[in-house]
């Protein structure tokens, strides 16, 4: 029995048994399609549909959204999502596709939307039937997010939206978007407001979604253009001019620091999945000829591969320690480091993979001789998505320096 099980409340203990029983009977098994490395890289309808079926099944069984009230489609439980997440991880399930909906839109709606809007939108969000996307970044507003220019002009009870959002993952499948925009051009922060807007039903009627092609050659994210899109005032979250505060709720949950635990499954070790881990690095080194032996015999590479094993273990142990208040100096200190550390770790491991592979690292996806099917150069290039998206590593260091260390703000 694990430590977390020992501390289960009666409700959690009973729920844990339920999760375990259900997962034993209902694990979806080996996927029928080749899955991407994460939800934001879902590219095809078959991938999406397979993953949506998994989320719907887990939702219907009460494993997703269980801490939300029943009135908004949740399970009405107390602190049980944590339990479901642990059991889904332990059962090595696929990831949930509606990742932006669950991790960012749902808590934002929960804390800032009017009841009727929550009751209308949250059930289909939690079940994964409605995919959500996030409209924050713009061509002129990246790290300096508060400088967004997308504008909503008031016409009675309606708003007319014009603007341009970029890096919008999942927009090509999304029914809904959380949208940070400007309702007042004279105040930078207090001129921002926050809306939810329908995307799919407005395609060609004020909304255009165009894929952006990454340096890898893959699609995955989009630009979204609003041209005179009319929405009702009831789609506004919180008060006019409070958009920045609402966005902070979104970002807090995105960075893992929110009150509501995000539903998370994962751990599936499909034959078709790949990620740049120290174990995969070891396999690559042991399979790569070098001199009379393999790359795993090279003393310099050995030292560097071991570094990656140590960093991976440290990150796991950071996660473990973040739940032990007696071993922390600041409540947010470890949580706020996670995104920075995991993205730089993956990048460094992938880069080392290229060095280990040597000349064969030049071979890409369609080359039959490419080590691991060309996944190493793909992972290395994709790693820059992780160190740039959701606050660049530089912004993460600013946040850590200012919020945790209390250093003067760099703006």
């Amino acid at each position, binding site marked *: 029995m694990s430590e977390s099980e020992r501390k289960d409340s009666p409700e959690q203990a009973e729920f844990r048994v339920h999760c375990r029983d259900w997962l034993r009977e209902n694990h979806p098994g080996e996927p029928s399609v080749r899955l991407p490395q994460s939800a934001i890289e879902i590219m095809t309808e078959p991938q999406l549909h397979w993953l949506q079926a998994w989320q719907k099944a887990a939702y219907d069984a009460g494993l997703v959204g269980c801490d939300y009230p029943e009135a908004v489609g949740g399970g009405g439980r107390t602190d049980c999502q944590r339990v479901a997440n642990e059991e889904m991880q332990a059962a090595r399930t696929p990831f949930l596709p509606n990742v932006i909906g669950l991790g960012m839109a749902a808590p934002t709606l929960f804390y800032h939307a009017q009841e009727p809007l929550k009751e209308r939108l949250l059930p289909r969000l939690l079940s994964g039937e409605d995919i959500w996307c996030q409209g924050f970044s713009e061509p002129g507003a990246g790290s300096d997010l508060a400088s967004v220019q997308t504008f909503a002009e008031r016409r009675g009870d309606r708003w007319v939206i014009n603007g341009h959002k970029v890096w919008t993952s999942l927009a090509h499948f999304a029914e809904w978007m959380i949208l940070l925009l400007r309702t007042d051009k004279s105040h930078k922060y207090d001129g921002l407001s926050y809306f939810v807007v329908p995307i799919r039903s407005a395609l060609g009627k004020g909304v255009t979604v165009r894929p952006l092609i990454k340096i890898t050659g893959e699609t995955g994210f989009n630009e979204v253009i609003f041209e005179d899109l009319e929405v009702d005032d009831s789609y506004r979250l919180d008060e006019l001019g409070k958009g920045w505060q609402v966005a902070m709720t979104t970002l807090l949950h995105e960075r893992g620091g929110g009150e509501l635990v995000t539903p998370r499954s994962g751990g599936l070790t499909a034959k078709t999945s790949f990620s740049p881990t120290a174990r995969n690095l070891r396999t690559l080194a042991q399979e790569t000829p070098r001199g009379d032996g393999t790359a795993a015999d090279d003393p310099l590479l050995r030292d560097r591969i071991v570094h990656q094993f140590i960093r991976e273990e440290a990150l796991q142990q950071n996660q*473990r320690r973040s739940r032990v208040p007696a071993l922390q100096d600041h409540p947010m200190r470890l949580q706020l480091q996670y995104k920075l550390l995991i993205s730089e770790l993956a990048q460094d491991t992938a880069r080392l993979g290229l060095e280990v592979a040597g000349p064969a690292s030049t071979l890409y996806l369609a080359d039959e001789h490419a080590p691991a099917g060309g996944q190493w150069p793909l992972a290395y290039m994709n790693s820059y998505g992780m160190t740039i998206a959701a606050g660049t590593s530089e912004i993460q260091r600013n946040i850590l320096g200012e919020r945790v*260390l209390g250093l003067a703000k*760099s703006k």
Partner: protein
Amino acid sequence: MTQPTNFGFGDECALLKDSARKFFAEHLPVDRLHALVAAKPDAEAVSDAAWREDLWPAMVELGWTALAIPESAGGLGLPAVAVAGLLEEHGRAAFPGPLAATLATSYVLAAADGGTAALEEIAAGRSATLAFASAAGSWDPGDTAVTAKGGRLSGTACYVQEPRKAERLLVAARDEAGLGLYWLARDAAGVALAPDTIVDLTRDQGRITFDEAVAEPVAGNGHAAFHAAMPALWMLLAADMVGAGEWQLQTTVEYAQTRKQFDRPLGFFQAVKHQLVDVMTRVDESKSLLYNAACALDHEPEKARQLAHMAKASASAMAAFASGRSVQCHGGIGFTWECYLHLYFKRQKHSEVLWGDGAWHRARLADMLLGEVA
């Protein structure tokens, strides 16, 4: 066996850590530490090994020296995570004294078949240290240059920690049976101490030459005892380095909050801010690996060696980084003797190489994780 998710760090451990922090802060805050060990700036000075010997009875009374000693030998038998917490505070205070050396000795004795009598002496308040390294700086006790014949020791042990502060010696010596452990008083007849002059002002080190010194044999295989105890020794040092690293971080952060240049506090500038964040993440990684290793010593001993290698490798790299950045980010004042930073800088450099530097630990890990090279 599986590990508890909270590292087994319960209320008792938290209380011990907290009281240690208060003890060090009350009895030897950094200004008094500096006055004690760095009173006379002199690059050519011979180390005088100053410490607060008067505090030792209180530390014994608090049970600190008996933490790792089994209850059967008169100790407290507390988990390794409790020791980690204590040593973290010890490092934060850069405390000079034989506490770490004594705890290290108790780990080796506890791993030997016949260590009970010596452990009882430590539990009763005797300080102790290990004599096992060769002049070449090997931390493999099998390379010891000390031999034993009929219970009499001859030869020289180098890089002995805290020799002027420890009352007892546990010596690794080659004898008729292979490698044996021997226990004797540091001031016994035939024991000659030559203190090293070292960079670290908070520690003491020396070489000890034995000339037919009579010692008590400790029953058991010396190789096996040292081998079993080394992960705990690496954990002790990693804990001291993590505590010292946190002090370096917090002290430099305070300076960056108050010192102004170009009309702004230093911490406003990202070139400074980002370095301090990198120090923080390194300290945190090392701290998490430290408690992971300590918890494994308590709950999953078959994994403890690998995880302790990781903890010491990480802590050594962190200590080098935090030391360098703390001085650099202070600018000119950080380069002076009057600023307290140098005490920690020097202590960290000492800890970095003691009982295996980062590269040595990573080489051992490479053999474990990638297989040995034929």
